[in-house]
């Protein structure tokens, strides 16, 4: 498989603030790649350098085989972008704005189809300023897709989405993958990253703290956790053999007629990995 994005030794400082410090990763064509990390970790900086908005201090970058710093219109035909923030022309309707942006591309997708993908059919003739925050965000996603890009950059695309809209966005991103398109997304929703991304990188203080498939990352953590409450006290048991431990625990409880309140068995999630990585004191 060819590589859609190559980043090697990327560095970027804003004056004294070293926002990105030697980041390297690659994204294969057709992959959904997630960039995670706390506020200020350097996600937007990295993504906007890849989009060609920001300059870099050091490092080698290839996006669809081109250095974004010198890329032109032909390259922009092939990418789609959702920025972390920014608004749209408030006085246009959903359809008008998608026609306007679609017209910038040589082979745009059908506007009605894109509206359907993000679920804005009922709002299609409404002015942008009458949309709710989440609806505007869905329109952002629609605009990123209207040019039928090979590679989409989504900087916190689902922030402000209701649960249904989020599922729908996941379906959209999965369908992009089925079409062989590549997605780079940032998110603070770890369940989203876990379910959607083929691979994730966790950034902390401008460096990659972990990189891999979500299952690999969670596999590195201590095993299954069993929690329950006894006499108002929370008890947590971590074990490699959940079946045996649970069996002993419940057998004992039954024998002595005690109820294990709030009994819960959980596998470590990406969220646990994330927290263990990002809560260590920096360096």
């Amino acid at each position: 498989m060819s590589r859609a994005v190559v980043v090697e030794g990327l560095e970027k400082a804003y004056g004294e603030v070293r926002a990105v410090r030697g980041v390297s990763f690659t994204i294969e064509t057709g992959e959904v790649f997630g960039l995670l990390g706390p506020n200020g970790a350097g996600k937007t900086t990295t993504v906007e350098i890849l989009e060609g908005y920001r300059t870099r201090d050091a490092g080698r970058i290839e996006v669809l085989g081109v250095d974004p710093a010198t890329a032109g219109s032909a390259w922009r035909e092939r990418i789609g972008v959702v920025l972390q923030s920014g608004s749209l022309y408030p006085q246009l309707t959903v359809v008008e704005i998608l026609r306007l942006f679609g017209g910038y591309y040589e082979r745009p997708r059908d506007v009605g189809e894109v509206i359907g993908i993000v679920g804005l059919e009922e709002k299609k003739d409404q002015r942008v300023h009458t949309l709710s925050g989440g609806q505007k965000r869905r329109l952002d996603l629609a605009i990123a897709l209207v040019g039928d890009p090979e590679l989409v950059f989504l900087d916190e695309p689902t922030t402000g989405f209701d649960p249904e809209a989020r599922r729908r966005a996941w379906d959209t991103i999965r369908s992009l993958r089925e079409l062989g398109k590549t997605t780079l997304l940032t998110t603070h929703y770890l369940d989203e990253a876990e379910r959607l991304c083929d691979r994730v990188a966790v950034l902390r203080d401008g460096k990659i703290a972990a990189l891999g498939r979500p299952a690999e990352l969670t596999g590195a953590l201590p095993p299954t956790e069993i929690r329950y409450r006894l006499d108002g006290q929370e008890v947590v048991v971590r074990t490699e053999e959940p079946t045996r431990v649970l069996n002993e625990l419940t057998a004992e409880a039954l024998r002595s007629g005690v109820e294990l309140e709030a009994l819960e068995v959980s596998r470590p999630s990406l969220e646990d990995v994330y927290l263990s990585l990002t809560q260590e004191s920096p360096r």
Partner: protein
Amino acid sequence: MRLFLHELRGELRLYVRSRELAFFTFLLPILFLVILGSAYGDEEIEGHLGADYLVSGMIGYGVASTAFAGLAIVLVIRREEGILKRLRATPLPAFTYIAAVLATTMIAFLVGAVCIVALAVTLFGGHFPKSPVSLAVALVLGGACFAAIGIGVTTFLHRSEGASAAINAVYIPLSFLSGAFFSQGGFPRFLTIAADIFPLKYFIDLVAAISLEGEQIWERPVEVAVIAVWGLAGTAFALRRFRWVPREG
């Protein structure tokens, strides 16, 4: 060319849809002509019928409000709201975008100027401008100059809130001092010196010479030169300093 026409259509739609902007930058000069025309249209001002005399001042006010103020405010808001930034991620070339925005501004200004002349003639018995071809050339020159300055000025404004207040604080007093509403004669000297620096006074004088006295544009080289120099300075500044992204990102 296809992209230019596509963007021009979009920009014209945006212009018509933004009511506040259209009112302040496009309709206000026309409204002032009607108001002032009702008061002074049939009097004699500096040897001319009031309605005729008002036309050049209101076209001058129009060029400042439509080409300079309207354009600058729109671009600052679009930049600070991140709209320009998003456009930079599309294949639409920067040059095509700016060309379409300038064309929209020019169309708005020229339509406004035609309305001003038409209303002066129909409502207040004014005369048709004497040298129409020279007048058309002067309007295009003035529109281009003030639009260039408007784009240049966006580099000094950093927030969309307050952008229109700052712009208004510049061009409205300047319009008065440059004689858009009344003859400059009544103002104290130190105030008119400010007007002598900026191109608006020269534009109003040029339009007056052409439409009232029937002169041709080449008979007024000083005015043309001042306007052109300002236009080129604005263009040079815009080319070097224009930003597509908000300050913080």
